[in-house]
């Protein structure tokens, strides 16, 4: 027994990790891809059949799919760009020493640890056009009332505001960690050369910080792309299909219409987009660094 272990140690030691990855990650993905090639649907009267790429062809002919891709990109772009700018700003402020800094940091964590469904419900009340606080606040500021979640044009920005509220702190924390790790020498050199605050930020902090910011953007981007909970609780994809992002679309196909084959093909498309986007950003980062 002992000799067996010794002889095969290079296989045995990584085995638990390999089993975990295969059963928990590789298998579900492979199974989803397999299901996406069948016509499995609870509403169909025929047995499950292998249909090749038929689901994908149907997907690319479905206007709701392209609408979903467009909305997903819009939501992700809007939310992540604002989160990045705000997050970097907050991190720069928190990077100075001031009284009650740790208290502020603690408060910042609150939106991140709250339950998304509870957040969704609270914001739904806030956005209610007639009895909600949102329009009351606009009124106090002398601004015209908004329909918030109930209009085609304002629903995605309204949802993005919730995402921004919830996730800007995470960007801030990542950037703050990056700031703490920056070397001091370039700053001393810049001070000796008489650079002003803006120049220090623009030519030293920002370039040194960009790898960290990029990490934050990639993480947030992947997450925002897959946002489900707040959209589902707040609009379920409505009004009409005006906030039906890819994840909601796939959910409706799977658990609304019970078309598991079609839902899987939408999820594989979502996976391909997320993977492609992430690889693109990483590739950009590598060429940028060279």
């Amino acid at each position, binding site marked *: 027994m002992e000799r067996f272990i010794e002889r095969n140690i290079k296989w045995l030691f990584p085995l638990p990790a390999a089993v975990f990855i295969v059963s928990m990650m590789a298998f579900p993905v492979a199974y989803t891809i397999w299901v996406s090639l069948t016509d499995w*649907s*609870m*509403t*169909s*009267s*025929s047995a499950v059949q292998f249909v090749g790429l038929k689901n994908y062809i149907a997907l690319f002919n479905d206007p709701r799919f392209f609408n979903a891709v467009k909305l997903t990109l819009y939501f992700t772009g809007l939310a992540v760009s604002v989160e990045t700018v705000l997050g970097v700003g907050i991190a720069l402020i928190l990077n100075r020493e001031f009284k009650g800094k740790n208290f502020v940091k603690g408060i910042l964590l609150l939106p991140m640890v709250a339950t998304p469904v509870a957040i969704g419900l609270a914001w739904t009340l806030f956005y*209610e*056009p*007639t*009895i909600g606080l949102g329009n009351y606040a606009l009124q106090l500021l002398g601004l015209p*009332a908004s*329909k*918030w*979640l*109930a*209009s*085609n044009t304002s629903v995605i920005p309204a949802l993005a505001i919730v995402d921004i509220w919830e996730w800007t702190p995470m960007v801030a924390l990542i950037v703050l960690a990056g700031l703490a790790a920056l070397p001091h020498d370039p700053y001393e050199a810049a001070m000796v050369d008489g650079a002003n605050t803006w120049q220090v930020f623009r030519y030293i902090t920002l370039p040194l910080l960009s790898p960290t910011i990029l990490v934050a953007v990639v993480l947030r981007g992947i997450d925002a792309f897959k946002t489900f909970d707040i959209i589902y609780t707040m*609009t*379920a*994809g*409505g*009004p*009409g*299909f005006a906030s039906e992002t890819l994840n909601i679309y796939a959910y*409706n196909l799977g*658990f*609304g*219409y*019970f*078309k598991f084959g079609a839902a899987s093909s939408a999820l594989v498309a979502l996976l391909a987009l997320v993977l492609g986007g992430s690889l693109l950003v990483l590739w950009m980062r590598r060429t940028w660094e060279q």
Partner: protein
Amino acid sequence: MGKMMKRGAVFAAAVTAAAVLTGCGGSAPKAPEGQKLSGQTIRFVASNHTYTDAIKSLIPEFEKKTGIKVKMESYFEDQLTQKLTVELTSGSSTIDVFMTRPLQEGRLFSKNKWYEPLSPYVTDTKKTPADWKWNDFQKSAVEATTLNGNLYAVPIVTEWETLFYRKDLFAQAGLQPPKTLAELEAAAKQLNDPANGVYGIVSRGQRGAAVTQFSSYLYAHGGDFLKGGECVIDTPEAVKAIQYYGKILHDYGPPGVTNMSWPQAQALMASGKVAMWTDASTLLPGLLDPQKSKVADKIGIAMFPGGSAGQHPYMVVPWAVSISAQSKQKEAAWEFVKWLSSEEVMKKAQLAGNTTTRNAIWNDKDVLAKLHPGMADVAKQTGAIAVPYDRPVMTAVVEARDAIGDVIVKSIETGGTADIAGLAKAAVAQVNELLAKSGE
């Protein structure tokens, strides 16, 4: 290996012997009469509904009477459908009794053989004694849970589209509750006063959810969802109905109707922000509860108005109880279903604000004394003329509702001025494809 098998066989024999001994010997304490199923535990998966709220506290009585333990869990309706679909698809046998929506799930679940056929149960006098009074159930309700001659669920509640209105606002304006859709529109227009925070009318506008409450408007205009196996939501009558629904909600409704299902609409009505609300009759208790409603003493109910094609509100069975075909304790499950829908329990549920399916209850003195004024009349009159469905009755009903609902949303957004005929035509094509795919 051989040794182990032998030991297993001996063990089994011992168990059998023990069972036979206790069965015949009479030395063990005998279960009281009617408790032959004692000790079994059944799992009841329910929906968050006033009926469930009403009976939850009564379950211990059932447990005491029969010795059957009931594990109950409840979900919001869409989550319930998902939960059931996932568990029943996996062939899991842990669900014994569940609540089901005949119009929404009836065909889908029947197609997948998830319902235990109940006709043999109700006709067998050994399983179902005559004093349970199966004949007392409303005929239309029983028809609603019967598919191809097979009863698949016991109907427990009915609901119909009704008009909730503010008695005080109507009196102030010198108005009577509208009897026609023309009067409804006129009243909505007259009472709509956004400057003072009151809107004329509200009804559901959220994509899929809107379809059911739009249905009575559709029938009143002479339209329908399906005819002869095809979708007919693009006929001139149907288009007119969609335009009308969009116009009144756009012109005299609160902002944000297109994001409203019943909870949002009910909240607005209860906070005194709208003068009229058309929705399911079962939502009345939420308006009458002084804890939740600012206008609890000012709510009137009236029959859903008639249109150019007459008065045709829907009246449906929104919830019924079924036994899972995969259950291993069907006898105990049936005992629970019988208890749940017995006259005694159902009366208590009705007193808690439900509208139930047994005729005797609607003639019960206690019940009549406690009903909201007008409720019994409206129920009786609606029952006589009602359409028994509030959505396209088909297997792929969710997807069909989304397709039709999107046209309704577009109509509300534009006040009925969008190209409704063209949009309806596109929805018809989608629904017809769904019908073809599921072989209907």
